[in-house]
């Protein structure tokens, strides 16, 4: 039975209160706008259509040379050809990073969805990224290596390589002046940014925050994952497949406009009702096999949301498709859900668009919001034989479903784990 915000009752749970969050706050954090840019398309509608069609978006990377690498494909975003930044002088346009363009598109969509044309009254931006404007850093390095003399354009590269300077480009586009907080917890950055923003509102430090994450493909990062043998040689990630052999990288951005319920200026699409973060100390790049930190974040986020595992109608898993991640996450979900595990639908949308790193948590949160709005479940694609570790309901094809709550997991290098719980709003 669907229970929308405002009509739901609080459920008694047997979950252990985690020290990660204070006693559960029921304050509603409304999502009044969302924007998404992914390899599946630009915007909510294009992404929804692609997910409904079980489409995958991998193709050869032409942004840099991949000839010497094992993997050669990724989820690549097709940016529009027209100029997006109108307030940046022509001679500076080349220093606006590809990822910043994606983020601007996502912000535009989120603001438009909230009926806004500007960022007036927005108290802060909280943005997650793992690589920032890495391609500009790469270019700075290459010029410095090649030239022993001063290269005038190096100043612009050094300056615009910094993510906060890239965010200034976006602020300038809207003539907006406010605090910009850049969270960089590797692949959990986007989820952390949304949770961070929700905390700012919940604590009364802000009424209205734009939050999300982004990352564009970069040569250094691509080669890094390739060096770790973390990329699927075939280019096709198969999360939760018994024979999975790695992830595929992607790029993209997503943003949510979060508002305090008592200050809400636009119709709500849903709520951020739970958030928790914890640190897995097992290894710099490998998760604890039992997923202990993930159990803690799922437990704490659900406690804050006031829901039990059986009420979660969909989990968008971190689901990278690497052998280590999927075992740990499946074990964590099974432990956390207990007897309810078999009835919880789970998928990894990375199977369709790749791992968007700092953008992943935000993009996957927006996909959860889309699923709650549309009452459907996106699929885990490319699975041939389900790994025996899977005890949940692995969604292998797009399907219609009734759901009130969706949960999304994000786990990053360095051990940062983050879980967001989103709640449906009735029309």
């Amino acid at each position: 039975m669907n229970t929308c915000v405002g009509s739901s009752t609080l459920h008694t749970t047997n979950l252990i209160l985690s020290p990660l969050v204070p006693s559960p706050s029921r304050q509603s954090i409304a999502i009044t706008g969302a924007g998404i840019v992914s390899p599946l398309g630009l915007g909510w509608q294009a992404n929804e259509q692609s997910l409904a069609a079980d489409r995958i978006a991998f193709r050869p990377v032409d942004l840099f040379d991949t000839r010497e690498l094992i993997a050669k494909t990724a989820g690549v975003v097709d940016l529009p050809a027209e100029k997006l930044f109108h307030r940046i002088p022509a001679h500076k346009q080349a220093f606006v990073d590809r990822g910043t363009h994606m983020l601007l598109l996502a912000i535009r969509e989120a603001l438009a969805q909230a009926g806004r044309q500007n960022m007036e009254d927005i108290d802060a931006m909280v943005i997650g990224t793992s690589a920032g404007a890495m391609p500009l850093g790469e270019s700075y390095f290459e010029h410095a290596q090649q030239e022993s003399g001063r290269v005038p354009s190096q100043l612009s590269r050094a300056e615009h390589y910094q993510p906060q300077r890239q965010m200034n480009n976006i602020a300038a586009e809207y003539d907006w002046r406010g605090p910009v907080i850049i969270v960089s917890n590797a692949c959990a950055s986007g989820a952390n940014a949304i949770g961070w923003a929700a905390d700012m509102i919940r604590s009364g430090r802000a009424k209205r925050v734009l939050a999300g994450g982004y990352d564009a493909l970069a040569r250094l990062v691509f080669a890094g994952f390739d060096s770790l043998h973390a990329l699927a040689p075939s280019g096709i990630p198969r999360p939760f497949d018994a024979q999975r052999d790695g992830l595929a990288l992607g790029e993209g951005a997503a943003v949510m406009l979060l508002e305090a319920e008592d200050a809400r200026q636009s119709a709500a699409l849903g709520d951020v009702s739970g958030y928790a973060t914890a640190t897995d100390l097992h290894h710099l790049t490998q998760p604890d096999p039992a997923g202990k930190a993930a159990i803690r974040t799922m437990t704490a986020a659900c406690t804050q949301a006031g829901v039990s595992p059986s009420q979660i109608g969909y989990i968008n898993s971190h689901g990278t498709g690497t052998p280590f991640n999927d075992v740990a996450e499946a074990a964590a979900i099974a432990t956390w859900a207990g007897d309810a595990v078999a009835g919880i639908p789970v998928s990894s949308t990375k199977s369709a668009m790749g791992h968007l790193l700092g953008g992943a948590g935000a993009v996957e949160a927006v996909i959860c919001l889309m699923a709650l709005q549309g009452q459907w479940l996106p699929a885990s694609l490319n699975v041939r034989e389900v790994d025996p570790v899977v005890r949940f309901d692995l969604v292998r094809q797009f399907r219609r479903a009734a759901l009130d709550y969706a949960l999304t997991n994000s786990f990053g290098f360095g051990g940062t784990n983050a879980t967001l719980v989103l709640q449906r709003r009735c029309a």
Partner: protein
Amino acid sequence: MNTRNICIRGVGAVSSAGWSAAAMHEAVLAGTPLPATPCARPGEGRSWPCASRLATAAPPEKIARHSRLRRSSAITRYSVAAALEALADAGHDPAAPPPGLGILFVMQNGCVNYTGRFYHEVLQNPAQASPLIFPETVFNAPASHIASFLGVDGAVSTLVGSSNAIMEALDTAAFWISSGIVEECLLIAAEECDWLSAEALTYYHPKLIASEGAGALLLSASGDGPKVSAVIGPLAYLSWQERCELLPELAAQTMAQFQGQATLINDRTGITKLDHAEAAAWSGGTWNTVLSPKYILGESMGASSSLQLVLGTLAARQTQQPVVISMPGTNTAAYACVVTP
């Protein structure tokens, strides 16, 4: 900002002056810029001057032993040393950190040495680029290592931003503490220097001298130690001109927060073109002492405001008077704060 009266229970620092907060304090009080040395560059050398003030080699007692620290970058080593000093300064046994500890880590450039090395390998032959180095290039690798070393499995996060982004972290630390997410919070900002970042600074101004280090503050809701009694900002700007125009407002708002004599710790580099707006903004104050750590230590980018805060804490303890810290930043927003004994 929700930082009123948050307590700074302990501080630690690694800087070009040495591996302790006291060494930095002493060098800044002495008032003489530390010697700079030419910054080495691989290959053919460079056709223009570029100097840096690097942290000295770690004294043996400052080298922490832990499996995760064996390959870690300089920025991690500086941060671990500063964090352990801050814990000890607060009366904790660094070997047994307090329960309920959180970590907020701030940087501007991050793990530049490993990043440069790894990208060099990628350009040479990506098929042979080291899988051991790549994870160390990630922004949150230092925070992860420190968390592992201290056994902190709760709230740990890394922020990237301008030199004064530590003020955003301070705001969050106050929230984490006040809401019970953590009991105490280590606030660390750090930077390491390489030839690329040293050169980058010379593009901003030929006389800017790159430096490195880490500042750590152990924060709690109560206890002994100076308090952050006021935070002014963020006053956001989109250009250097806007920055210059709003600094008088920053100074005026700050000076309204205290009475009597105070110490000013400013952002002065010693380069008039870069300093004049800040100097003019604060010229109306009556200062007991004016300290300019950047002028003495060098431009340590993401670490610089943490070193100011560490210095401010020591100055407040020593003088028993308020300390005003000016952090105008470079890219996004200006901050100031008042630390009271």
